[in-house]
């Protein structure tokens, strides 16, 4: 990773590499912007690299960039290319094969909410320690829900690949199937509980590389779609609207759910849409910059058994 970034900077192929460096807290890495070969030496990559750096691409219009992407991140970049938001020749994609990202919240549950003061990445997972405890945790125990059935750990698009290709996991929508099986009232009650937490900080929207509208519908005052106060009804309106805007675009990177400071289960809605796109139309987003968009195209034979009155 460091070598690749260093070389790109030294050879002036790029003048900025956006990657990850260690953060200031255990279990945390943070986006890092390396402009010199020396800075490139601070780059790291591991299962704690939870942000999707593709988001930052949209900000830099002049620099020639090197960008570190995981499998899912690469797919979101493909969607941006498809939507003509990024020029391909401006980005040198440093792909990293990914075996899954660790969900910090799951780690916290495993240690009963005690403060983790140190963490170390090992081959199989992580070791976390705090006052009076040390725990060895396997990555698979604390994987993000999106990573459990990830078929695209190896980036679908890259200029340099750092590391060996990884095996695709078996698609797994078990969480969504189980939820679908619940009665509607229970599903609504679950969302009511989740939506009540939301503080409308819009971290989910702002970390999402595919949320790039100049004016988000929540900020519109003409019409004012929803209240600016974080009532459950309004929060739900926001999250349903946002999820729908990502239908056929969301690549299940899970960055929004990890960014949420209050832990709203955002992936329930996103993953439902991903599953439906697959089930109803055989569509998977972010695999090919040439693929048509899901919701602005159609097939004359699309299912329509739900039409009222036949």
């Amino acid at each position, binding site marked *: 990773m460091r070598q690749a970034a260093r070389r790109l900077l030294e050879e002036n192929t790029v003048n900025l590499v956006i990657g990850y460096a260690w953060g200031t807290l255990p279990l945390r890495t943070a986006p890092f912007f390396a402009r010199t070969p020396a800075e490139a030496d601070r780059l790291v990559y591991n299962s704690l690299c939870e942000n999707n750096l593709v988001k930052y691409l949209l900000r830099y219009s002049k620099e020639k960039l090197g960008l570190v992407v995981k499998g899912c991140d690469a797919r979101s970049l493909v969607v941006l290319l498809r939507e003509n938001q990024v020029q391909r020749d401006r980005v040198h994609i440093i792909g990293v094969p990914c075996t899954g990202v660790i969900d910090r919240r799951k780690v916290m549950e495993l240690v009963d909410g005690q403060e983790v003061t140190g963490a170390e990445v090992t081959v199989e997972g992580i070791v976390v320690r705090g006052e009076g405890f040390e725990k060895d945790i396997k990555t698979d125990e604390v994987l993000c829900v999106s990573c459990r059935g990830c078929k695209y750990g190896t980036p679908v698009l890259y200029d340099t690949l750092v590391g060996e290709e990884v095996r695709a996991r078996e698609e797994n929508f078990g969480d969504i199937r189980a*939820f*679908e099986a619940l009665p*509607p*009232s*229970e*599903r*609504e*009650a*679950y*969302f*009511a509980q989740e*939506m009540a937490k939301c503080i409308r900080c819009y971290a989910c929207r702002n970390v999402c590389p595919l949320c790039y509208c100049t004016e988000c*519908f929540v900020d519109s005052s003409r*019409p004012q*779609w*929803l*209240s600016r106060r974080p*009532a*459950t*009804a*309004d929060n*739900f*309106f926001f999250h*349903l*609207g946002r*999820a*729908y805007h990502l*239908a*056929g675009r969301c690549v299940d990177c899970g960055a929004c759910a990890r960014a949420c400071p209050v832990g709203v289960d955002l992936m329930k*809605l996103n993953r*439902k*849409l991903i599953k*439906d*796109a697959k089930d*109803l*139309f055989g569509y998977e987003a972010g695999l090919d910059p040439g693929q048509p968009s*899901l*919701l*602005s*195209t*159609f*097939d*004359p034979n*699309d*299912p*329509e058994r*739900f*039409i*009222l*009155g036949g």
Partner: protein
Amino acid sequence: MAEDREPRIVGFLCNWCSYAAADLAGMSRFHYPPHLCAIRVPCTGRMNPLFVMSALRRGADAVLIAGCHPGDCHYVSGNLTARRRFSVFRSLLEFAGVEEGRLNLTWISAAEGKRFASLSTQLTQRAKELGPYKGMLRKRIGV
């Protein structure tokens, strides 16, 4: 009182077919229940899911989206795009606990005044069975 009120249905009708069908139903003196409030849209392809959520939020108990039959769209394919979007959105709403039947899509041509009247009747009946929408999207009035 609120519990027994008559259902409120918001109908988004396309300018070229379904809205004309509603006119025809009226001119033909067909009888159908008065619960559907018609909003004319240029095409079902213009439908934004936010319209549907806003209707439910502001007091609708059911929503109808009606457009030209497949193949008859004034804009060639607006209704076919709408069909795809709608199937995704409808599934999402139901997943989130909004009962099946609150959101409906249908095709009614300009010549089908009869069909408009009968579907309105059918939809009103369905909305009555479902009862008022009191789900999470409904805006809670008050301070």
